[in-house]
């Protein structure tokens, strides 16, 4: 076993001082047997170190004395220098010189009060430095290059342990020892690898010694550290920290990464404490420790957060079966769920619960009581499913809330809070959607920076233009979906890749073979015409149905269909419309991807048209209700006046008792807000029902039939028609988006709607996951999610804006009902805010607000914003143009480059000039050079033979003589500092053995 002897030799090389450690180093190489012993020694070291760490001045004499004796025994020839240690100044000067510092400031340190022995030890260590210094100067560049041999590590650990045991440094915290114990594992690992490169062993020029030597200096001359040095050390520490943070990004093998990590951690642990000075140091060490704790906490928190992301495994399972595109739907669903949870907690925490807990109880006032006429049927199931009866007069809807300014002993301003929550819902959604739009819903899981995302999106934006640049290359390298883990999906993927390749090949070969453009154009126009007709028709149908339902509302004994006509029609349109569009789209003969976009756009238009027609019709209804309300209001006011007149006539003394009417008998207005809320809730519920039923029938039943009737059927049901269903991603996403739009619109008038939606999303997560796994088959054309996510978020944003409009319109311009809801009795809903300002805030705030609301201020502000938008737009336009220009230039340059390579004579002067001007062009070849450089750098390091020998020689000489030349050699040791302080050694002849043999 050559390794042991190697280690021994190395230890000799390093300095006899380690002799006491040789045994433990040997333990390293045979770790399995003696691991326990080793840890014991280490523990000893730990104790000593921590003692040292606690109080600096305490000198643990016994072990040190023994060491010193040992040392003396073995290293007789060093006595000369040890004696000379007592006069400090020259040494210090040397040390400082070594570091390339002016020597003056450093001389005051350690020598004065401290025992001599320490200095002696220091001297020896410095000697060791020298040896290593020599090695260092050769290895400065090779710090991160290549594989370090495992023995190096052994050696290092030995030295490090040594250091720990002796060190008088304060900063040797337990954490530091931790990392040493980690090192221990690595050491254990090392021998088992079995491959030791002799060349490396002979050439101990890897960074460790230099770090070690530095560390000793850090320990010993800590006070003498000057500003510059500290800065440098700090820099290095920072560098190491950066390395630790980024180590996972390095394309290294795990083992190497682990090793570098250990190294860096050890280094950081050692030096962080040394960076402080005097009293500040303890604080610094404390800070460092807190930092570590903080990092640990952050990591734990990160762990916790990942653990909190629900359904991760479910989604992954779906992903592996159906590709990432289907999974993207579920991720979107989960994201929606998260957002709705926040909305839900807002609404329930600030509106519903306070009203329920602290507001007047049910039955106390008319708006919280079922009217007498409805009481008989109020608990009927059919009534409840229509959200009439008790449902209508519950906290689910706007009408239930009282207009008391404050509720409960907390003086909670409920009406204000209601309005604020309504606004906050939109504000929060807007924020989240916009943020996510630039970050994709994936941002829940990925941790790439926002800038990265933005850049990516920008790429996507420009992607269409460049589509033809890398068609084949992309197809070749990125078409495989690495997430596929299902044989069937994989088969489909193979098929689709092959098809796509064939398609592109055909495209390439034919390259714009335009047959009968006119027919195609005609067909496309026709298709669009048809679709427009369909859209218009569906819009009219809805309008018609809403009108009819208003008529129905005044009639009695309606059938079930007549009651639910509106919802049924809307759901049916949502079902039939897309299919119709798909059929019509066949006419157009677009590329499937473009076709998908058209399809999505059309479905979107259909849904949107339906929604808005519905809204318009609803507004008609609201206006009618407002009229009706006016008359009722007059009637009730008249009634009150009558009553009061009577009352005061009968009882002239007390005025103001409310009429002794049961709250359920009071004449009340239609409360249009609740009506609107009910409409939205009904729509949502029917949407849920239709979705779930479609899944149950369209997917589950179909799958059952196909599966089990297949045994006794004339043709193969599984292979032919009807087969199993595919998961309709775009339809599902759009459904989700529209559902969310309805929630946003309805949430203001029906606070309970958000709760319903949360339930819906929760159940549909499980339900759809189950359905997709149980009864769907992977897409025939498996395509990747890619950027469609962004598209969905765009739709969501659009819907958000569109649903914002009607709500804001109603808040700002319609008068609230006089006898229901939190804003009853006010002119407009936002009067709550003015009221609060007037009554609750100090007077000057009121004037402040009135100034702020002055048109003279608002109009300039709006103008300013418009200007800013215009300006930013122009700037972005400019950037885009510049970008395009640059791209064009690059393309040109590339072409030119190719041409020139193909025939070297062709030199278009203009293009050549252009090329020179282009920065990108000149940058291009550089990476290649850089690629080669490391190899070049590596090369000399890997041939160590001569250098290794040289070191041996050097060692002998330097141990024997404390001559100035060896010190001079060390001027180069600590890294990339300027050399040349000693003119005699400044030459290139430094390398290796040249100077020492001259003595």
């Amino acid at each position, binding site marked *: 076993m050559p390794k042991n002897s190697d280690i021994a030799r190395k230890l000799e090389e390093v300095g006899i001082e380690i002799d006491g450690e040789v045994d433990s180093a040997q333990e390293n190489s045979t*770790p*399995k047997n003696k691991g326990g012993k080793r840890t014991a020694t280490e523990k000893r070291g730990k104790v000593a170190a921590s003692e040292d760490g606690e109080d600096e001045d305490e000198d643990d004499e016994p072990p040190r004395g023994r060491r010193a004796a040992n040392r003396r025994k073995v290293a007789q020839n060093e006595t000369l220098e040890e004696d000379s240690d007592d006069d400090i100044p020259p040494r210090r000067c040397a040390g400082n010189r070594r570091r390339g510092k002016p020597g003056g400031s450093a001389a005051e340190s350690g020598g004065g009060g401290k025992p001599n022995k320490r200095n002696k030890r220091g001297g020896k260590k410095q000697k060791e430095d020298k040896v290593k210094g020599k090695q260092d100067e050769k290895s400065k560049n090779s710090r991160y290059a290549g594989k370090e041999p495992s023995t190096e590590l052994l050696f290092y650990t030995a030295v490090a342990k040594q250091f720990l045991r002796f060190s008088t440094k304060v900063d040797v915290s337990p954490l530091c020892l931790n990392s040493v114990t*980690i090192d221990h*594992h690595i050491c*254990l690992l090392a021998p*088992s*690898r079995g491959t030791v490169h002799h060349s490396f062993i002979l050439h101990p020029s890897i960074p460790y010694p230099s770090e070690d030597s530095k560390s000793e200096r850090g320990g010993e001359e800590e006070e003498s550290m000057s500003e510059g040095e500290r800065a440098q050390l700090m820099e290095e520490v920072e560098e190491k920290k950066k390395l630790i943070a980024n*180590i*996972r*990004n390095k*394309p290294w*093998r*795990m*083992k190497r*990464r*682990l090793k570098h*990590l*250990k190294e860096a951690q050890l280094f950081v642990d050692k030096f962080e404490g040394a960076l402080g000075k005097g009293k500040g140091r303890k604080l610094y060490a404390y800070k460092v420790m807190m930092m570590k704790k903080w990092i640990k906490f952050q990591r734990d928190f990160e762990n916790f957060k*990942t*653990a909190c992301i629900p359904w991760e495994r479910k989604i992954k399972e779906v992903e*592996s079966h159906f590709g990432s595109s289907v999974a993207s739907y579920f991720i979107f669903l989960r994201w929606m769920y998260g957002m709705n949870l926040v909305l839900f907690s807002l609404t329930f925490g600030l509106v519903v619960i306070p009203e329920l807990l602290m507001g007047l109880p049910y039955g106390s006032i008319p708006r919280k009581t079922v009217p007498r006429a409805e009481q008989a049927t109020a608990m009927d199931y059919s009534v409840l499913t229509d959200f009439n009866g008790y449902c209508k007069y519950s906290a689910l809807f706007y009408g239930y809330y009282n207009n008391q300014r404050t509720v409960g002993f907390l003086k909670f301003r409920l009406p204000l809070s209601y309005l604020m929550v309504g606004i906050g819902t939109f504000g929060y959604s807007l924020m989240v959607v916009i943020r996510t739009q630039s970050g994709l819903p*994936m941002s829940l*899981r*990925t*941790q*790439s920076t926002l800038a990265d995302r933005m850049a990516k999106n920008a790429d*996507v934006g420009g*992607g269409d233009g460049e589509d033809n*640049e*890398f*068609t*084949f*290359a*992309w197809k*070749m*390298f*990125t*078409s*495989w*979906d*690495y*997430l*596929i*883990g299902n*044989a069937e999906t*994989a088969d489909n993927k*193979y098929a689709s*890749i*092959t098809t796509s*390749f*064939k398609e592109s*090949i055909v495209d*390439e070969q034919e390259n714009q073979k335009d047959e009968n453009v006119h027919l195609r154009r005609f067909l496309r126009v026709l298709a669009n015409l048809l679709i427009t007709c369909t859209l218009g028709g569906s819009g009219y149908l809805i309008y018609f149905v809403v009108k009819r339902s208003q008529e129905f509302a005044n009639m009695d004994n309606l059938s079930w269909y007549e009651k639910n006509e509106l919802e049924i029609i809307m759901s049916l349109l949502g079902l039939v419309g897309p299919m119709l569009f798909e059929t019509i789209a066949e006419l157009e003969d677009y590329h499937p991807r473009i076709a998908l976009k058209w399809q999505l756009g059309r479905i979107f238009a259909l849904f949107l048209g339906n929604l808005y027609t519905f809204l318009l019709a609803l507004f008609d209804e609201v206006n009618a209700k407002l009229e009706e309300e006016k008359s009722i209001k007059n009637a009730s006011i008249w009634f009150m006046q009558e009553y009061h007149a009577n009352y005061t006539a009968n009882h002239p003394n007390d005025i103001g008792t409310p009429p002794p009417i049961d709250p359920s008998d009071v004449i009340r207005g239609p409360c249009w807000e609740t009506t609107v809320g009910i409409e939205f809730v009904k729509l949502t519920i029917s949407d849920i029902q239709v979705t779930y039923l479609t899944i149950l029938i369209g997917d589950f039943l179909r799958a059952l039939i196909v599966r089990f009737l297949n045994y006794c059927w004339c043709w193969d049901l599984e292979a032919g028609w009807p087969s199993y269903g595919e998961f309709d991603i775009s339809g599902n996403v759009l459904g989700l988006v529209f559902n969310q739009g309805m929630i946003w619109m309805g949430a203001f008038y029906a606070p309970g709607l958000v709760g319903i939606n949360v339930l819906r999303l929760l159940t549909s997560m499980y339900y759809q996951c189950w359905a997709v796994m149980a009864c769907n088959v992977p897409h025939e054309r498996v395509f*990747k999610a*890619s950027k469609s996510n962004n598209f969905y978020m765009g739709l969501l944003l659009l819907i958000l804006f569109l649903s914002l409009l009607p709500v804001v319109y109603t808040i700002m311009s319609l008068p609230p009902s006089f006898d229901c809801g939190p804003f009853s009795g006010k002119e407009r809903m936002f009067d709550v805010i003015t009221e609060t300002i007037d009554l609750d805030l100090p007077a000057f705030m009121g004037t402040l607000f009135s100034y702020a609301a002055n048109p003279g201020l608002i109009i300039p502000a709006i103008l300013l914003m418009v200007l800013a938008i215009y300006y930013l737009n122009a700037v972005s336009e400019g950037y885009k143009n510049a970008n395009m220009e640059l791209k064009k230039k690059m393309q040109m340059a590339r072409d030119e*480059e190719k041409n020139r390579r*193909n025939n070297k004579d062709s030199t278009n002067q203009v293009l050549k000039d252009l090329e020179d001007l282009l920065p990108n062009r000149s940058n291009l*070849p550089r*990476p290649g050079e850089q*690629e080669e450089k490391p190899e070049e750098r590596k090369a000399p390091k890997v041939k160590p033979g001569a250098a290794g020998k040289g070191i041996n020689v050097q060692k002998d000489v330097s141990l024997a003589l404390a001559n100035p030349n060896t010190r001079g050699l060390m001027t180069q040791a600590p890294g990339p500092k300027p050399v040349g302080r000693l003119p005699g050694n400044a030459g290139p002849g430094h390398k290796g053995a040249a100077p020492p043999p001259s003595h």
Partner: protein
Amino acid sequence: MGNKQTIFTPQQLDAYQYCTYFTRKEILRLFHRYRDLAPHLVPLDYTDQPDVRVPYEFIGSMPELKDNPFKQRIAEVFSEDGEGNMTLDDFLDMFSVLSEMAPRDLKAYYAFKIYDFNDDDFICKSDLEKTLNKLTRNELSKAEVDLVCKKVLNEADMDNNGRLSLEDFQNMIAKAPEFL
């Protein structure tokens, strides 16, 4: 979860967390996955870093890789011995790089290595052909393969030396919208 402590020391877990994109729970889960591949080979105690390699036959049969046309290459690239036999470190490494947290650059680097079948640090024509045949299960004719390879080289080869260097590849990949 009593045995959690005995598989790795906290320091090991910590280091693995630094070196991969995983949380400790995921690392443990991955370890169990690893162990389940060959329970008779992999010990339950990793505190002393046993030198265990799971042979390629087991690695390749994982559901994640089973249907991947490049499974052999992936295993080869990530394994230390270059033959697909993986240690736990290699295994973690592979999953770390393939995880969604890994940055594009890193993925591009490994993707390049994966597509570089003959390990000459360039993707040359033969590599492209192999890739294509694996992707399409040899369903394209020779002429078609030739055409596609030529197109790919034409598109992505910036320095026109007839093969793709790492820079070419990264440059191309960086613009790809679908590269995951």
